[in-house]
């Protein structure tokens, strides 16, 4: 460090960059070795047959064989994947809506507010894979029986797969609720940052609470909705609610299929998760950046520019004619 300080040629910015990297270095190396490289290497592995022998790991190319095994030969994987996908589609909106409502309710000033917040946050602390498994297996999370409800029976006759997911949602409603812990805090934090004058102004203009919710609160909270939804998608994938997760782990230690098949499982699964997150971005993106709106804005800007140009032109012409006029006046 001292040597570097003596060199006057190094600019401040360069030195800053260097020190920044010193602090950042461990994370960067870790990311490259333990996250980025594995991420790419899994793609490579999924097209190979992987085996461990005395020489270490050996890989032999076998095309899309692993994928065929995963999607077609294994009778459990595809249904589990579909179930995972459907459950995310049903759970994520449920969790987001419930946590948003709870955040709005908790936002007011009333007694025992902190106590409620503590209760709603408790699951974040105690939730873990095996705890959830035990609670779900014991049937202690079931409140009421959804299969007796008429609407449910109608739905089951149309789409048994979706009906299963919804039955699971209601049978494990308490556990699904447990995922609202962090989204509630995020929403609450966002709600408290909204300027109360906005609400007052809207009230003075005669807006009802319902209108205020849709026209002010939700547009402002939209970025948080995106963060919370991504968080929920990631979280939901990490627990036994997700059947694929355990399947990949068993596949790692499975000697018949080997790591190649496990990688193809992992890769297909990740693709689904990333597509879901992409969909979240698409649904909850900032609408003011939409192509349509951008086009309108550009049109307006173009119009203004043209206006400006013609104004300038007129001004310069005026000036020109004025000069000419003055010149002719002078001549006269």
């Amino acid at each position: 460090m001292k040597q570097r300080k003596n060199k006057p040629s190094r600019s401040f910015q360069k030195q800053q960059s260097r020190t920044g990297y010193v602090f950042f270095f461990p994370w960067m190396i870790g990311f490259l070795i333990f996250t980025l490289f594995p991420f790419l290497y899994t793609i490579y592995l999924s097209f190979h047959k992987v085996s461990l022998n005395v020489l270490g790991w050996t890989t032999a190319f076998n095309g899309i064989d692993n994928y065929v095994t995963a999607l077609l030969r294994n009778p459990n994987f595809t249904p589990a994947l579909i179930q995972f996908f459907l459950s995310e589609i049903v759970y994520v909106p449920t969790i987001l809506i419930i946590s948003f409502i709870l955040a709005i309710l908790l936002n007011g000033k009333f007694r025992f507010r902190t106590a409620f917040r503590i209760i709603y946050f408790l699951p974040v602390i105690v939730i873990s894979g095996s705890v959830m498994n035990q609670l779900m297996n014991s049937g202690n999370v079931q409140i009421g029986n959804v299969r007796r409800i008429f609407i449910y029976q109608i739905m089951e006759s149309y789409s048994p797969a979706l009906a299963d997911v919804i039955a699971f949602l209601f049978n494990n409603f308490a556990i699904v609720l447990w995922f609202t812990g962090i989204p509630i805090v995020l929403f609450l934090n966002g709600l408290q940052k909204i300027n109360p004058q906005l609400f007052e102004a809207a009230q003075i203009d005669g807006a009802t609470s319902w209108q205020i919710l849709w026209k002010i609160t939700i547009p402002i909270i939209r970025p948080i909705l995106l963060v919370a939804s991504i968080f929920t998608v990631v979280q939901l994938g990490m627990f036994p609610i997700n059947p694929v997760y355990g399947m990949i782990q068993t596949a790692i230690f499975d000697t018949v299929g080997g790591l190649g098949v496990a990688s193809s499982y992992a890769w297909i699964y990740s693709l689904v998760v990333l597509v879901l997150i992409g969909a979240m971005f698409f649904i909850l993106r900032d609408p003011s950046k939409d192509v349509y709106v951008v086009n309108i804005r550009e049109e307006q800007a173009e119009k203004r520019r043209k206006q400006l140009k013609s104004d300038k032109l007129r001004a310069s012409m005026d000036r020109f004619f004025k000069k000419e006029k003055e010149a002719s006046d002078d001549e006269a």
Partner: protein
Amino acid sequence: MKLNIGLPKVNTSKLKRKLLGYNISDGLVYRIAVYILLVAIAYVFLYPLLRMISMTFMSSADIINPEIDWVPQNWSLTNLRVAWSVLSMPTTILNSLWYSGTLALAQTFISAMTGFAFARYQFKFKNFWFAMVLMSFIIPVPVVLIPRWMMFITAQNVTGIKMIGTVFPQLLMAIAGQGVYSAILILIFFNFFKMIPVVLDEAAKIDGASSWQVFYHIILKMSVPTIATVFLFSFVWNYNESYITATFLRSALKLMPLQLGLFDSIFEKMSANVPGASGAPGGQFRINESFKMAATLITMAPMMIMYLFVQKQFVEGIEKTGITGE
């Protein structure tokens, strides 16, 4: 235009105003409705936990008895005692505590360093790397787990040091900033460090402090509460984590969530040694739900007790991430 500013009508009775309020959201009716809703949802939140606690203290006769719903008739500690020995208790909890404590320490330190780099320095590709921090949260764990596992097997074979079944793999990953939810911990630090005035750094630098001295003497010493929050989160998440841990530890070390996951099989093994007990229908040592619930309660207990004391830190910690936009 109709004027709508709070001119109360003369004929509105006081009672009505008290019940409904000027605006619906400050009337008594609304408040009662909110309370009912909040209590109902809180009940659903706590339902599994309450059930678990109630079952833990039921004797085996109480569980079969359909008349007993919540409060056990014959209180018994048998379930707890059985679960305690099946989980091989004092050892397991001590293991769990030092294991997650070590990982949490490593994670806290590295997140603080990374957060400091992002909050204070302008380096090349900073935005790109920041995006990568967020990406590391989104990338699903299974997809990176397999090569990680292969790496450690290879390292084990090459160096001859035992890796799988020890704390090493996870400790190494934690030190490299790739532990459980590392990205969130980094965000907490990043946002807190950003709020510390840069003037302090500059003053110290003028007095001849190096970057490390600034980091240690100013930044870290000023953010003790944040460090505590991050450590607690990391501790809890490492304690509850069982997916990565199960992959790298296998069954070499007894940890709480892992033992709970294996509860059934361990119970089978242990009860086989009790003469004439296993397999007998209705026998005292047949596995039943209340044993499992007692074990679940024991697994949760350390975290719940901790939460009772430091719950404020946890809730504020999530707010400190600043992912709600600043």
